[in-house]
């Protein structure tokens, strides 16, 4: 998995960088805060490691930027890429939202008529209807899970989910290995702790 190893390295580098920035800014942090920071750094690092190739990464970064605190962090992490991302995200998201909204309205208006038709021969169509609703529900859930998923149609959603799963895996592995290493080092050197 060449791509995953590359991704791993990129992610690790950026994460470390982000953590450094984080820690340099504040010294005394609550566990909660720290955890949040760590997670944030990890997420941003992961997203930036993608170099804006996937929409979920763009969405993730744009979400992170919304909070004023994180902007500095994000910008530092991203480096020269950030302006590109900024330019991309705003029109993308607005256009997507508009599209989504109009689509939803259309769908609602159509589905009512369709539902009336569908209830005609109940047996044959009920099953189809049930199946479709099941799939719809699940796609909705997936949309909520994948960052930036609301403004995606089914096909791209699956594609993004694919990518997102891959990168999440990388993230988890890196974090786990780090945690493991930290644990080992702590066990060996308990004085560091506390």
């Amino acid at each position, binding site marked *: 998995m060449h791509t995953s190893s590359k991704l791993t390295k990129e992610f690790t580098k950026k994460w470390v960088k982000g953590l450094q920035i984080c820690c340099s800014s504040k010294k005394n942090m609550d566990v909660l805060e720290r955890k949040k920071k760590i997670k944030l750094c990890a997420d941003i690092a992961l997203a930036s490691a993608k170099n804006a190739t996937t929409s979920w990464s763009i969405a993730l970064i744009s979400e992170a930027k919304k909070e004023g605190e994180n902007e500095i962090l994000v910008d530092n992490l991203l480096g020269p890429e950030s302006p590109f991302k900024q330019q991309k995200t705003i029109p993308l998201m607005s256009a997507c939202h508009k599209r989504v909204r109009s689509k939803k309205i259309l769908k609602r208006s159509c589905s009512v008529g369709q539902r009336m038709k569908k209830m005609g021969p109940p047996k044959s169509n009920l099953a189809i209807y049930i199946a479709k609703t099941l799939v719809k529900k699940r796609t909705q*859930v997936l949309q909520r899970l994948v960052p930036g998923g609301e403004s995606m149609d089914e096909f791209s959603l699956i594609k993004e989910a694919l990518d997102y799963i891959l990168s999440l*895996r990388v*993230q988890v592995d890196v974090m786990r290995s780090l945690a493991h290493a930290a644990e080992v080092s702590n066990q060996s050197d308990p004085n560091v702790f506390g």
Partner: protein
Amino acid sequence: MEKDGFFNTPQPWNSLFGMELESQVNEMNCSPEQLPNCFLSRNWDHSMDQSDPFESALSSIVSSPVNSHSGVPIPASENVVLKELIGRLGSICNSGEISNSTNTSCYNTPMNSPPKLNLSIMDHQIPVPIPGSLPIPRNHQLPPAPFPADPGFVERAARFSSFGMNESEFPHMVESGKVSRRVSNKQCFKTTELSIPIPGSDKKFSRELDNSMEESSLSEQIPIGETGNGYKGQNSNSNGRKRKAIPKGKGKETQFSTVSAIDNKTIGELEKEESDAKRSKSGEEGNGMEKEKEKEKIKEEWNRNQNQKQTKEAAKLPEPPKDYIHVRARRGQATDSHSLAERVRREKISERMKFLQDLVPGCNKVTGKAIMLDEIINYVQSLQRQVEFLSMKLATINPRTDMNMEALLSKDTRASMLNTMNHLDAPAQPFYGLVHARPENPLTSMMHHGSNMKSSQTHGFGEASAFWENDLQSVVQMGFQNQGPIFHGIMGTGQMKVEL
């Protein structure tokens, strides 16, 4: 012998269909109706009723011999012919029967039998090819020129032969065929049969779900061909047109559908192979549009055929086949570009789903979009939770020393990562379903609560939570009990993030 046999077969068939089809129909109809749960009986009904297309198809192909032999007494020759065909095609059916409903063994049947037929035909240079579509690798044997009648012919022969075989075996075959088909359907993602176990309308539901699922037209045609639209005539017609429409041997898939009618049991395997063929093909997206157009043509023709059917058959048809036809007719009636685009889209989606199957652990057995999506959702959720968990762990383990963390990163993690890189996939996946058996005691309480909350929601995760609970009981709590409520709060927020 074989040559003669083959020459003989079209003629008595023609004469059969042309002259005393009805008597045969009645004969044939009796036995299938007696068989229980034989949806093939419907096939028979319809196939028998479809005398006209058969006739037309056959007559168009085998013109002169028919006329000369029209006076042949039907029953005797028919029996002879039947026996010959039974002998030949019975080998398919027999091997199919023996292998029962195991897909792997049944793979042999289409592979073994059709080549024989192919070779026999090819050797004698009779312009009556059996479609090399049976198994995909045999396609190169198929002559590119379109030969319409014989596949339908062969199908019919097969049906008759299979029918002529022990009727006691028939329901067995049929049922196992069903089973194999269902199983193979479930296995082949492309055919995308929803395997939602809603009780009641078993077959019907699955077929209806088939319709609801994104399916390429050919995979639909195959179940239609199975279930039965034993409209062999239509099969032959559509196949004829398919062959005309497909010059380059992309007719692999289409011809598949014809041969799929040959044996009930091999149908499942053929579907699978066809879906494999499709997968291999769908990789080539350049051909995709052409394929789609061809499929579109085929669909249109198919729908026309369906519409041309007598209303009796439509009435006779039970729900399941009608659902296929129902949906497809709708699509056929819609504009071509729409259905084309739809099909392209669906193919793409199924491609992606295939990738996701490889990614998400434990999805190989699962087919059906909803279930796949379910698994994906579970997996994404679990990964996200893992990230949260690990970040919390890192936060607690290194309360002040982020510098240490970096040092660790630089030294240990790289070394360990080199080791773990090889096992990257392994740890990620077991974690998904197994116990996270590390002594992270302060965090286990969190996970306990988290897993308790979540276990009811996601069945896939339920196992993991059960494991965690078991593990938790055995884990010694360290000095983080003071921060219990904090962790509660943390997990609360964390849960709120990922809740459905």
